[in-house]
């Protein structure tokens, strides 16, 4: 069963003081997230990521379209007890302690009174806040608030977790801890839908990613597939202080750094290049196909429509699909 089915969800706002005109925040979005999947929703600031999450949470209402969450209509009250949500840069009640806040959210989520306080302590410990649990939240740093936000999102053991920019405002250690937490959620069989613009996090965590820009979904793909695609080029690294002329003639783009040369050349020239190295008695360090990074995929999807179509045509012809 799909955990989330977004069916042409669309949102536009009326802007302007006197003459109201519609501003499109999200163009019709169709997307399916499978159960147990970690899905990364990528896009620059203002792309429509937060709007999508707010629509799914029922915080704003769609102009058109709908969605099904865990097999139920998105506005079905039963959905809310099975999902967790961390908003972007969360802010909580200043005068409550972390423990009181989690207890309050536990009450609202229907966590039974018996065992609630144990569950709260467990969550506090899971996000590393046991020592600060009695302090009022107004004394918390941004990173600590983010941890509280994560704890409240998973407090009631939801099946599906929505995280809006979960790494935002965290130091490298904090980011790592959040990554570990998402990995743990995956192992527990939870579905995680998170938005981010930090590509390395998405690459490390996600099964699939979707790229959204200017309110439009530009592409969806499995991270493993995207990053395993070769570019029809190979990278050769060898010990040398200069680039052999014969190698340059094969069309290699080379860079010398110290005693090492790093050369990239078309795949079909690979054997000829190895012959050159053998002839000149040069020690080879590595030969690897050049793979596409998530960043390249992301940048490609963010290009204006015409440039993107051209890239897509090239990609299809390289795969042999035809134009």
């Amino acid at each position, binding site marked *: 069963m799909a955990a989330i089915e977004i069916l042409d969800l669309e949102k536009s*706002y009326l802007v302007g003081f006197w003459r109201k005109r519609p501003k499109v925040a999200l163009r019709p979005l169709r997307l399916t997230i499978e159960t147990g999947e970690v899905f990364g929703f990528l896009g620059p600031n203002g792309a429509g990521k937060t709007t999508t999450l*707010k629509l799914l*949470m*029922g*915080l*704003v*209402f769609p102009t058109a379209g709908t969605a099904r969450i865990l097999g139920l209509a998105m506005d079905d*009250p*039963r959905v*809310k*007890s099975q*999902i*967790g*949500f961390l*908003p972007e*840069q*969360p*802010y*909580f*009640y*200043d*005068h*409550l302690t972390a423990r*009181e806040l989690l207890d*309050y*959210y536990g*009450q*609202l*989520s*229907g966590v039974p009174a018996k065992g609630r306080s144990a569950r709260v302590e467990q969550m506090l410990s899971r996000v590393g806040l046991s020592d600060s649990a009695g302090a*009022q939240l107004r004394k918390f740093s941004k990173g600590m608030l983010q941890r509280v*936000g994560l704890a*409240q999102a998973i407090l*009631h053991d939801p099946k599906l977790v*929505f995280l809006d920019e979960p790494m935002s405002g965290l130091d490298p250690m904090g980011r790592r801890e959040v990554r570990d937490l998402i990995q743990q959620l995956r192992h527990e069989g939870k579905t995680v839908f998170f938005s981010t613009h930090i590509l390395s996090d998405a690459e490390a965590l996600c099964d699939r990613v979707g790229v959204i820009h200017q309110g439009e979904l530009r592409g969806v793909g499995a991270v493993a597939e995207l990053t395993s695609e070769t570019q029809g080029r190979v990278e050769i690294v060898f010990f040398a202080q200069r680039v052999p002329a014969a190698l340059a003639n094969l069309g290699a783009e080379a860079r010398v750094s110290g005693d090492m040369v790093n050369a990239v050349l078309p795949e079909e020239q690979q054997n000829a290049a190895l012959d050159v190295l053998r002839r000149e008695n040069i020690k080879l360090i590595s030969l690897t196909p050049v793979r596409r990074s998530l960043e390249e995929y992301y940048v490609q999807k963010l290009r204006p429509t015409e440039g993107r179509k051209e890239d897509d045509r090239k990609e299809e012809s390289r795969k042999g699909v035809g134009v």
Partner: protein
Amino acid sequence: MNARIGYIAFNTFREAVRDRVLYNLIAFALLLSGAAILVGEVSIDIERLVVVNLGLTAVSLFGVVIAIFIGIGLVSKEIDRRTLYTVLSRPVRRWEFVVGKFFGLTGTLVVNTFLMAVGVLLALLYVAHRFEKMDAWVLVAFYFIILQFLMVCALALFFSSFSTPLLSAVFTFALFVIGSLAEDLRGFARLAPGVAGGLAKAIAYLVPNFSALNVINQVAHGDAVPGRLILYNTVYALLYSAMAISAAALIFQRRNLK
């Protein structure tokens, strides 16, 4: 009562109390006691009248400002700071949130008024040296003040369900002032002819009638408050507040939380 409404109400109360709103009352009580001592020194025979008048008017005005301030602040703050997101992404219906907030605010205001009433009664005891039977009507005046706060709070929530905090404060305070003159408005409406009269009458009956809840002068003179008025005022304030809260919930139900 729905348990979630209770949780939201308790949390609202806890937030408001810790937000040091109530601490202002200590300053108020001290000021009032100081004023009572001063009044006791300069008034002859009318100490009681002056203290009751001064005390109840101050409680009413001071309380209305607090009711508007926290009534508007707590809801718009939840929207501005996005604390509402983590509440509404749980199995909480929007109307439950509005009603819970209202009860939490009401609780805060009742505690507020209770503390201020203690200040006024102590001042009264200081100048009069003992309580008399007619002082029981002062308690009725406090009860009416609480009913007034209920309505102000409901109006503040109503306006903040669709407007900015500043405009909500202006609208609520304006309605409080107009409502305090409701009886005069009704008098004018009776005198005005034709369509204008009908319109004035409609407006006069639409605005909250705060003047009926003001018995300060009456109790200051030691006059009794009729039981029928207590009943009418109670029913009126509860119905008016319920209507304002229902309207707030209906508007809030459809609001996009940007």
